[in-house]
């Protein structure tokens, strides 16, 4: 027997399903097909969540890789306390638990007018709504002497996997007393605190194994995320701002790096300044992934403009863009943000397909960076939509780690490790 209270509870939970049976809608439940391009945090979360909200919608995820390797945590691999294999995430649970169809292929083209995607094997996949979550690609045309074909020699390590291992191997092969140069890209780019967490993690490794070495950050920006927390933590752990600092930060917004001499691992700036490195980690200027460009989803900025309530492209109807490729500022380009954007997108897609009313969206971003294996810092923000349809930070919310007491930073480091587990679970499992 079901009590009245349990019945109410049941019926509210199953509202979407009940309505599916009772209501006539634009696409009836059995025919709506959502195709998702890209199996990162954005695409995986969108796939899972659409099935959670309305299991009658058919969802197909297209992702060339057999498993995902998370970028979060990949700097920890450089520090030596995290194995790259531990960042592998399977797509199996999206299939087995949520009935998401998965096609391991590359998308060749998108036809926005006729509503289909063509795969690299020429197969055509029709969609009612398409979600594009392809991540980033690099603007190699801005640098002379270096491009994707030489990135095995000068690894960017800005997509986790083989690139991470290449950089790690170079650090391990470097002599004690060597110089690591990290070139931090201009805004906007994936993971705003990433280059500085990377500097911290490389310093953590060098301090133990090659203490005479140095890290020079050449930054295209005049300021960066969590800057004061990084500076104070570097002072404490890596002698920052002293005569014997392991990390140096040089801001060169007006003097960009123009040329790389691969053979000599040497950089040249616009003004002709030369920097020589033993290990060179050039993180290129970024743009939305190439598929977004060829599909005509990008504006002149190189990123994809979207309606923020629905994340639907302002350039092509029935195509939604989420994650790093989309313009959703002031939300940063991060894994956690891609997960949040995917949720807003999933609500919007399900409501549009069912002709339900749109909901008021909300985004949360939390982002942790480690300074050492046991000390960490964080930044967080809550975002809402204003009357003009723009995303805004909620006044009074968010901010960085409240103080830099050792005990606080220990808690933050523990939370950073837990954060990685839970965000992976929420997105892929």
């Amino acid at each position, binding site marked *: 027997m079901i009590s009245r209270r349990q019945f109410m*509870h049941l019926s*509210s*939970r199953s509202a979407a399903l009940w309505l599916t049976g009772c209501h006539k809608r634009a696409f009836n439940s059995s025919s709506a097909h959502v195709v998702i391009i890209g199996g990162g945090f954005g695409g995986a979360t969108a796939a899972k*969540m659409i099935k959670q909200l309305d299991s009658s919608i058919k969802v197909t995820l297209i992702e060339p890789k057999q498993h995902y390797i998370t970028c979060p945590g990949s700097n920890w691999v450089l520090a030596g306390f995290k194995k790259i294999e531990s960042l592998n995430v399977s797509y199996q649970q999206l299939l087995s638990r949520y009935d998401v169809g998965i096609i391991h292929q590359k998308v060749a083209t998108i036809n926005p007018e006729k509503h289909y995607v063509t795969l690299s094997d020429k197969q055509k996949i029709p969609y009612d709504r398409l979600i594009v979550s392809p991540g980033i690609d690099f603007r190699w045309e801005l640098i002379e002497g270096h491009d994707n074909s030489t990135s095995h020699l000068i690894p960017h390590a800005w997509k986790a996997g083989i690139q991470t291992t290449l950089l790690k191997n170079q650090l391990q092969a470097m002599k004690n007393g060597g110089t690591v140069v990290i070139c931090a890209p201009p805004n906007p780019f994936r993971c705003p605190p990433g280059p500085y967490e990377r500097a911290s993690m490389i310093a953590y490794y060098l301090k133990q194994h090659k203490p005479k070495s140095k890290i020079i950050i050449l930054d295209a920006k005049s300021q960066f995320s969590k800057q004061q927390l990084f500076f104070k933590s570097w002072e404490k752990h890596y002698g920052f701002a002293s005569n014997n600092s392991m990390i140096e930060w040089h801001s060169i917004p007006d003097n960009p790096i123009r040329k790389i001499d691969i053979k000599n691992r040497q950089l040249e700036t616009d003004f002709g300044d030369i920097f020589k490195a033993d290990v060179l980690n050039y993180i290129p200027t970024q743009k939305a992934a190439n598929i977004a460009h060829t599909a005509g989803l990008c504006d002149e900025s190189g990123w994809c403009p979207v309606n923020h309530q629905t994340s639907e492209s302002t350039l092509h109807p029935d195509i939604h863009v989420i994650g790093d490729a989309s313009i959703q500022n002031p939300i940063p380009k991060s894994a*956690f943000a891609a*997960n*949040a954007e995917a*949720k*807003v997108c999933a*609500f919007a897609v399900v409501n549009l397909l069912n002709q339900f009313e749109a*909901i*008021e*969206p*909300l*985004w*949360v971003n*939390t982002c942790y960076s480690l300074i050492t294996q046991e000390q960490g810092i*964080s930044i*967080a*923000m*809550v*975002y*809402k*939509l*204003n*009357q003009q349809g723009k995303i805004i930070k*909620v006044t*009074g*919310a*968010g*901010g960085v*780690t*409240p103080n830099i007491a050792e005990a*606080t930073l220990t*808690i*933050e480091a523990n*939370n950073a490790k837990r*954060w990685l587990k*839970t*965000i992976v*679970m*929420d997105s892929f499992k």
Partner: protein
Amino acid sequence: MADVSGKMVAYTCYSCHGEQLTNLKSTQPLSTISLRNTLLAFKYDAKSASMMNRIAKGFTDNELMAVATYITGSH
């Protein structure tokens, strides 16, 4: 700005607390009011944590009540 629904807010909680909240009913039954009070305590700094004070300040009191209702009612 209109209030955000309890369901939308709850899904943002799951990013960090998915497993805990899914297991909530079986492991530690929690009343709506006690969860709401905890969230309000974070918002108004009556209770402190490394992250939750910063997050809870992003929501209206009504939204915190709505998410507490959704989470305790639906698990």
